[in-house]
């Protein structure tokens, strides 16, 4: 190579580096350095009240002291529990995103779709609202406002079609977080919020009904108990089936089975579920014994290639069933307690943000709303367009019904996208919760909405214990990393299964 060529090459390299240097410098200063620095801090006793430019003392290395304190104290575990509670909403939020994406892949515009359906729906909505107003709901303005907004949305959908709806559904994602939280805070207001204003007439009706037909609600609760046992039976049956078919290894079946039993464990410890404990215990044991017996009897039929085979599918099944079980458990407890709660003929709408029992679900519901119209929905929309049309044509020729088309074509085809969304949602779930806790509840009531990220903020900036806050951050990182690794190892199998 001539000297000139070498010089040109060096100049080109320097020019390239000059262009890149702002970014490299930015990443190095604002990302790499803080990450490395916080790792060092996590092993130090850095406390702003002692170690800052106005004091002579320097932070000292204290090994695993901060991490030991994490495990010793009650706060980390409690707030980790809160974080996990919020994360239980992830499957529902993902299902919501998928549902929204499927809806938004249909054409609603006049000519392309069935406008008369939408017009009819609008007319029905208006008629319903007018009837409610005439019946004296006492909140005519609110009802009309909601009705007006609903009709406007439907009519704009008829004319604007998919573009309008897609924009509308994606709105939560580009509205500033704090503004959204303040809006929801107003929506959740106990006495004046639209949610409770709409809910109160329903609760009044329920209270009246509970007084008139109390045993009906008790029966509903017992129906819930049966449903809970049925869900357990169905989950175990499915696991047994795949085990027998050789698609599930014995070791891979352990965690899913435990997950299916978690709601029963919670019911045993939950005071409100005490009337149903005995039945749930006996029924649960009976269901487990039944499936264990059936499994032993068919011991000669199965041959799983490896003990960990099929873990991904089984875990997904168990997680979804567990969330369903928790929903049923919550509903049955509500149904069972309604007659006593409405003893004096009044059921007050919940104090969403100031009652520890409702604060977490309230934030979770808000999370669903935000998650449904998020990037997840866009990812699903994109993935749906990639599902080969021939598969649907073949299914149609075979006479498949819409649900069969979904379960056998759409869902498996979306598996890689679902996996990606689950991984990202899990990471986001573990790291999230700070903004909403800060703006809406300040971590209360009684610490019910304090997540790990909010705990880091409190320790770091309110108490000034930067070393300890860094240790919490790195513990959180380890959790995120472990869960992601777990997802990657077993979730990938689910995708490939």
């Amino acid at each position: 190579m001539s000297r000139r060529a070498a010089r040109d090459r060096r100049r080109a390299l320097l020019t390239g580096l000059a262009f890149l240097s702002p970014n490299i410098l930015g990443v190095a200063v604002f990302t790499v350095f803080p990450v490395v620095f916080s790792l060092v801090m996590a092993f130090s006793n850095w406390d702003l009240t002692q170690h800052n430019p106005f004091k002579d003392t320097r932070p000292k290395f204290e090994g695993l002291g901060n991490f030991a304190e994490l495990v010793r104290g009650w706060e980390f575990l409690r707030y980790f529990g809160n974080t996990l509670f919020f994360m239980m909403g992830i499957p529902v939020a993902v299902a919501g995103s998928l549902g929204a994406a499927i809806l938004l892949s249909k054409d609603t515009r006049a000519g392309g779709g069935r406008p008369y359906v939408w017009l009819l729906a609008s007319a029905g909505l208006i008629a319903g609202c007018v009837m409610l107003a005439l019946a004296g709901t006492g909140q005519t303005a609110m009802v009309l406002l909601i009705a007006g907004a609903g009709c406007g949305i439907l009519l704009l959908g008829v004319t604007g079609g998919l573009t309008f709806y897609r924009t509308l559904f994606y709105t939560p994602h580009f509205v500033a977080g704090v503004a959204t939280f303040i809006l929801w805070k107003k929506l959740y207001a106990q006495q004046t919020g639209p949610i409770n204003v709409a809910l109160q007439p329903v609760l009044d009706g329920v209270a009246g009904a509970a007084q008139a037909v109390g045993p009906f609600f008790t029966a509903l609760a017992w129906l819930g108990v049966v449903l809970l046992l049925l869900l357990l039976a169905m989950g175990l049956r499915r696991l047994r089936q795949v085990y027998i078919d050789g698609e599930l290894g014995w070791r891979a079946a352990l965690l899913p089975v435990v997950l299916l039993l978690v709601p029963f464990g919670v019911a045993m410890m939950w005071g409100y579920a005490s009337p149903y404990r005995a039945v749930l215990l006996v029924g649960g044991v009976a269901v487990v014994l039944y499936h264990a017996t059936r499994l032993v009897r068919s011991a000669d039929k199965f041959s799983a290639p490896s003990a960990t085979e099929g873990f991904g599918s089984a875990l997904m099944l168990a997680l979804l069933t567990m969330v369903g079980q928790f929903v049923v458990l919550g509903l049955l407890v509500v149904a069972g307690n309604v007659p006593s709660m409405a003893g004096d003929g009044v059921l007050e709408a919940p104090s969403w943000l100031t009652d520890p029992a409702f604060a977490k679900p309230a934030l979770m519901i808000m999370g669903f709303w935000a998650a449904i119209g998020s990037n997840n929905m866009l990812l699903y929309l994109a993935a749906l367009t990639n599902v080969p049309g021939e598969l649907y044509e073949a299914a149609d020729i075979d006479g498949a019904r819409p649900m069969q088309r979904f379960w056998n074509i759409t869902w498996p085809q979306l598996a890689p996208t679902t996996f990606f969304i689950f991984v990202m949602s899990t990471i986001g779930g573990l790291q999230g919760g700070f903004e909403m806790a800060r703006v809406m509840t300040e971590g209360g009531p009684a610490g019910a909405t304090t997540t790990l990220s909010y705990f880091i903020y409190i320790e770091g900036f309110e108490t000034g214990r930067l070393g300890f806050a860094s240790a919490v951050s790195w513990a959180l990182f380890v959790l995120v990393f472990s869960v992601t690794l777990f997802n990657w190892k077993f979730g990938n199998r689910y995708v490939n299964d």
Partner: protein
Amino acid sequence: MPMKVLFTSVFGVLVLVSLGLRWSFPDVQTERPVIYWVTDKNPAREQQVALFHEWLVENGHVNDAGEPAVELRLDVANMDLTKQTIQSVSGVAGDLMDTYGPSMRQLQAMGVLTDLTEDAEAMGFSPDQTYAAIEPSITVDGRQYRYPANVGNSMLWVNVDALRRHGLEPPPTRWTWEDFERLGVAFRDAANPPGTAPNERRFFALNLDSVRLLRTTGLSKFNETLTACTLDDPRYAETLRAKRRWVYDLNILPTPEDEAAFASQQSFMGSDAQRFGTGDYALLEGGRYLLILFRRYPHLGDLRVVEFPHAGFPCTMISSRAVALYAGSRHPELAKLFLQYLASAAYNEQIVADADALPPNPAYTRGEAFLRPPAYPKEWGTHGAFVETAETIAIGETFSPYVLPTVVKRRREFFEDQFMFGLMSADDAAAATADDLNARIADELDRKPELRDPFERDRAAQEQIDRLKAEGRPIPAELIKNPFHLAYYRRTGQLSESPATAAATVERHAMAVTAP
């Protein structure tokens, strides 16, 4: 090549914009030194700044051009303690910072506040120039770190018309928890006829602070030497039970959701004052500063103030929004002039006129301008009551040097919530609070070796105090660090003070009230 030109041009534009931004900074635009005052958003602050500039000229603090020697600017966006903490250690905090008791303790522990003791003595803004009870709030270990911008002692405002409308007479100035409960139930029944909608309910009073209620039982959060939390005492559990009974069983105080329903961002206590004005609350806890809001409601009828209901030991809490000087200030000598101004007649008279709590110097509460402002005859019976309680039953805040106030507040409120929401019994909540805070004290001592020696000394003093208490003998004042216990033992005749100490206290008090 065009990319290089574009890159260079963008870089050049950014540099120019940065320079432009820098030139727009106030300290570049003026030739005079600029100092910043971190305070709350309040129209009165602009007036106070203007008054300060005038005061500088009147007192000869001027430059060669005859202008004020320093330009004071407001910073109303950084009152939050987390912001003050981060800005302080980063070297960019405001020169003067409004602080409350807990924030001062935290910032002082960080070493970011200037020790003002000698300058305060020389320039006339020492603790002698304010209420004796406020001293623990502005000093740490005998060293002064701030001077009050105003002083607040909490009392209960009474909307006399709201009570009389329902056939009830206002309570006496001094009353007990039982009196409070009895009158509260009577008001609840009279003001909320059957069928009253939840959002139209009237309450006897807005929520009462648990710590203030607790003090009226003769108990403090910490022991005499501040070395241990004493909230496992049955009196704390009883306080919690009383509060819960008033909120959830008797409905004479609003629940958090009742309060949230009317909360607004309009201003500090704005919606509460409005509801008090309309008679939705018969009583409202607060200081004289609430008059700023009440004066906006000309229809508001007769006003009175009464003491906090007590459970054997009538007392009230006195605290202060006080100004501290940042240790990293570039103009500390000029900033101290502002503290001197806070002790001046010009500033105190403005506080008197604005009714922004009590003026820093009690001497300015003696005149007619304070006691009977001509424009507000309805208030005449209230001003003097605040001064009287400040000088008789008011006790300063209690802070332990062995645990940060922010930690104490968070942990105590957590367990209080656990009880209020039925997740724990009162006795368990009280015990858990004490256990948890004592564990935090132990952790703090582990982490901060420099605290161990003073802690051991204080603990030895505590053992001595406990022994004297057990023997029924008076306790020497010099052993006690907790201002609450000092006042409690003095008022209950259990304190042993040397004649010199007692005389000094009296003399100091007399100095403060005759200063001008």
